[in-house]
């Protein structure tokens, strides 16, 4: 073997997969528990989704239970709650999108105009406090404020000549209440990411705009907003992907049977039917339907955004 070929073989050797795996065996060793975790707690449940197509029987287990195809899916589609659940889930996240999504952007823009650094920091710190408070505490406080007898809201209503109302017992108020709670809770925390993006907008652009005679509003419209549009789009993709996946935690604490008409969403329904009533296969089918729609929504928005604005998650 000539020295040149020996050189070549060794060179190839260094690029072979086996060589590279051996070279980073410490990293593999490190990663092992992580991959085991993901298999056990993320991918195993995904395979567990097969029970949506089976008649899950506790004694037989997941594999031995009988296949039933799309039985539980059609049961869900034909259920009299199907339309109501889709409508409630969609409307609640849609309101969140319309009112909750712009709120942090507006707050970030206003904070950005605040030149006093200390004051700005204090406001910021206070504004994201609710993000760290548990849902149970937030809903507990909320319920106290809405209380018919002594709640602040009803005191105000009465002071302005209205009659005391049990807001949480009337379907027509639920979406407003849920959306308001969401804004109160998320406005400060949501603004951080936009404020970070705002600091990256070059000051020279503002000066140029000023020289061209642009006022504050023009500056905001032509420089600030385009400057943070990438961040806005990324956040929007996430948000749209969640259009049919309203979390159950907050609603489970807030709702009651009297307001299922507007408050019951897919995730709370899965919880009640699937877990409380132990209709596992049915619950899994509804859950799978919900996650699939979420996946489709995320990838569609992502693809659209990639095409039209060159910004995307992946």
């Amino acid at each position: 073997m000539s020295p040149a070929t020996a050189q070549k073989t060794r060179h190839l050797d260094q690029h072979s997969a086996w060589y590279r795996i051996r070279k980073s065996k410490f990293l593999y060793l490190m990663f092992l528990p992580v991959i085991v975790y993901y298999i056990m707690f993320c991918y195993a449940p995904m395979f567990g989704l097969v029970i949506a197509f089976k008649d899950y029987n506790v004694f037989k287990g997941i594999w031995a239970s009988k296949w039933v195809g799309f039985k539980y899916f059609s049961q869900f589609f034909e259920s009299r709650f199907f339309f109501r659940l889709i409508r409630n889930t969609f409307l609640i996240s849609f309101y969140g999108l319309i009112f909750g999504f712009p709120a942090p952007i507006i707050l970030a823009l206003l904070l950005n105009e605040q030149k006093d650094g200390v004051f700005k920091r204090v406001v910021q710190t206070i504004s994201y406090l609710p993000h760290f408070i548990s849902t149970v505490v937030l809903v507990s406080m909320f319920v106290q404020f809405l209380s018919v007898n002594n709640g602040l809201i009803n005191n105000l209503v009465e002071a302005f000549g209205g009659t005391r109302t049990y807001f949480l017992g009337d379907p027509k108020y639920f979406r407003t209440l849920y959306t308001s709670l969401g804004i109160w809770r998320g406005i400060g925390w949501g603004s951080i990411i936009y404020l970070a993006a705002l600091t990256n907008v070059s000051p020279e652009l503002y000066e140029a705009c000023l020289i061209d005679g642009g006022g504050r509003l023009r500056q905001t419209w032509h420089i600030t907003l385009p400057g943070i549009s990438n961040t806005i789009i990324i956040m929007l993709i996430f948000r749209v992907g969640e259009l049919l996946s309203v979390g159950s935690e907050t609603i489970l604490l807030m709702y009651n049977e009297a307001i299922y008409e507007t408050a019951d969403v897919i995730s709370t329904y899965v919880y009640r039917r699937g877990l409380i009533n132990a209709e596992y296969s049915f619950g899994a089918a509804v859950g799978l339907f919900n996650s699939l729609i979420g996946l489709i929504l995320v990838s569609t928005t992502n693809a659209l955004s990639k095409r039209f604005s060159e910004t995307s998650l992946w």
Partner: protein
Amino acid sequence: MKKSNSRIAFEWFNFVFMIVLCVVMLYPFLNVVASSLSNNSAVSRGRVTFFPIGFNLEAYKAVVRYQHIWTGYKNTLLYTIVGTAINLVMTVLGAYPLSRKQFYGRSVFTFIVAFTMFFGGGLIPTYLIINAYGLLDTFWVMVIPGAISTYNMIIMRTFFQGIPVELEEAATIDGCNDMQTLWKVILPLSTASLMTIGMFYAVGHWNAWFNAVIYLRDSGRFPVQLWLRTIVLQNQVRDIVEGSGAVDTEAENLVADTIKFAVIVVAVLPILCVYPFVQKYFVKGVMIGSVKG
């Protein structure tokens, strides 16, 4: 430069808006604290606003005597400490390899991990799997299934990526093996980020209640949040008032309303106490994450 009239008007509007915002954010907390310290009739007639009316500590005395709150507190504390420790170890174990260019198959592993952010088994299959592992109604069910938050791990990976390769190479030349490099060079450089991620996890554990509802039966393992829900949202005040030694309904009514507020305060106090000191870490965390999601 002279300010235009509209600019001055805007600045005033903006200032007032900020003040109103702060009041709206803080008032609920102040009111809850004030109510918990007030006398019951003032609370039940809705007269308490910013300051306690008829200051007294009866509600707290009742809460302190309530055994479940203490057990709940102890459980929450254990879940938070053990859970956060597991979280940090697992997150570093995952984030470090994913940040190294020489980690063969990195993109495949990144995909496997990131995919779980967009699709998952959902409530029912996860419940059944956890049941199959025999974790139901154990201490570990509160800390193991959530051992890694993919989002936090990706933030951590982004941070590790920012550490110059030269530092590692220098360590290798000085005779460190991979393990020593990580332990003596990488991790000391990452303490601030680890703190940040650790706080996110810790707050998550402190506030967790839903997993407890699903996976725990034995009330001896319940976290404090669950007792809060029972007392305030499911209106089980009676139990706690009876524990306080009050026998007749009249005495019971003396604290019935204020107790709810006191329980809320007890559940939220630790967070409120540490919040002013640690909030800057949280903000830093979002900043690292926003560089590249």
